[in-house]
């Protein structure tokens, strides 16, 4: 618990809030990027260097760009006529608040029971690599398969539909 943590938490939460609340979709996407970056920095603060950099590489380098592309391809950068929030936004807000309340309650109730490790874990990239191709090789291969399938699926879904002759 120190200043850095509070700053990063504020950055992340602020980014997240902006992402949800801003009107303009591109602004939302950029705010999401801020939230992603804040999270990556939080990862670094948790001594998870590899995960942090992977987060930057994947989320800022790929997912954010993907979102931006999607926004521009769907003309999402123009403001919709019927407002950006759904008519029943209040219900959603209440539910989300309920979720937070329940989660925070759970955290505060149970966190004392968890033993805490304070020493910085000595984990190198080599360890992660060895674990990936050792103990976690099956998940790794499944993820590889999933990514391939997702790539092909995304291409097929987004591909131009062929003109079908009208019957």
């Amino acid at each position: 618990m120190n200043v850095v943590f509070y700053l990063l938490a504020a950055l992340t939460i602020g980014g997240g809030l902006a992402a949800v609340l801003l009107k303009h979709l591109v602004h939302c996407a950029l705010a999401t990027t801020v939230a992603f970056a804040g999270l990556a920095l939080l990862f670094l603060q948790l001594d998870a260097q590899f995960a942090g950099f992977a987060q930057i590489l994947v989320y800022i380098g790929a997912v954010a760009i993907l979102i931006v592309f999607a926004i521009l391809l769907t003309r999402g950068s123009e403001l919709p006529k019927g407002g950006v929030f759904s008519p029943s936004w209040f219900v959603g807000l209440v539910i989300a608040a309920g979720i937070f309340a329940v989660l925070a309650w759970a955290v505060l109730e149970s966190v004392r029971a968890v033993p805490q490790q304070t020493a910085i874990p000595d984990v190198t990239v080599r360890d992660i690599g060895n674990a990936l191709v050792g103990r976690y090789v099956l998940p790794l291969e499944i993820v590889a398969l999933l990514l391939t399938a997702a790539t092909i699926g995304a291409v097929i879904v987004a591909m131009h539909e062929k003109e079908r002759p009208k019957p």
Partner: protein
Amino acid sequence: MANTPFFTNFDQIFIILRDWLVSFLPSPWRPAACVVLEVIAIVCVFPGLFALTTVFERKGLGRIQNRLGPNRVGPYGLFQPIADGIKSLTKEDIVPLSANAVVHFLAPLVLVVTVFMGFAVLPMGRNMVLVDMDAGLLFFFAMGAATELSVFMAGWSSRNKYSLLGAMRAVAQMISYEVVLLLSSVAVVMITGSLSLPTIVAAQNSYTGIFPHWYIFTPWGLAGFVMYAIAATAETNRSPFDLPEGESELVAGYHTEYSGFKFALFFLGEYLAMFSISGLGTTLFLGGWSAPFSFLTFIPSWIWFFSKVMLSIFVFIWMRGTLPRLRQDQLMNFAWKFCLPYTLLNLIVTALWHFMGEGWMRWVVCTAILVAVYVFMGRVEMRSEHFGPRRYRYAE
């Protein structure tokens, strides 16, 4: 000879200088002061190099195009960058009326900052690296990925169709070639077994006879380096892959609406990206700061590093002077249908190289596979109509 105190001191002169400066401070402050000093050094040296390179590029292009290049300001036009700098600082900073001001302002900053971050993990000489991160290469690429966002921000916030088109082209191109860039570097990681750049250099810093063990002198290393160089050219939007800035079509691409100092920042950012990507290429394939022959090790390591980087910059300039621009579809097809498969193959070959063990066999087999596939893909696959001349539907 290389071990004599004089040469060692000369090699480590910056380290010694830093330690000497820091020794004036109380010891608890020293580590922080070290970092500050190093950051100052990087922030001073590379923009200085950038200034030099602009002159170098304009003169070089001038020679290629059979003209003189800048020669009015100072001896041989050497003070030209100072004049340019003063000009861009004093020009009016125009922000278009409909532009999204905040994003428009942030874009060049994000670009320059992320590009500067990349230098943090580059070893520029023996012991000369800002942070020796365990995951240095990943950090470098993470920072490289962040630059794409700044390009998009610049293009979108300008509210100009040319800017937006240029930005979309640039982002699409950078994403496509980033895959190739990353995968061609992974080959090196596979052999070295480390993502730390100083470790990668150290792995190449040994000699057989007088010849060094640089990775470019292996079949997979050469193939990887060629792929890396192509991807780096595309990644930095340099000719012949400079479509995002193609002035004949897009005015100036995503920074059309920038002027004055913000434009200078974009300019700086692009050149810095060029330096950092050349530095990474040097580190990965050309032995980083190690000398090209064992009898030249007495020359300080940082001189080698910077000469290799400047050599790559020269190649960039040379290509800009000689090659015509590609078309967008050719560019994308080339990335996804040639570079990517070939880089993946290179990874397999690298694994083969590793598992075949020492001996001449692996040289023959790896070279044969790479050359055969290169010829096959180049001659057979690239022959299809996507890569050939475009058929104009109405002009013929």
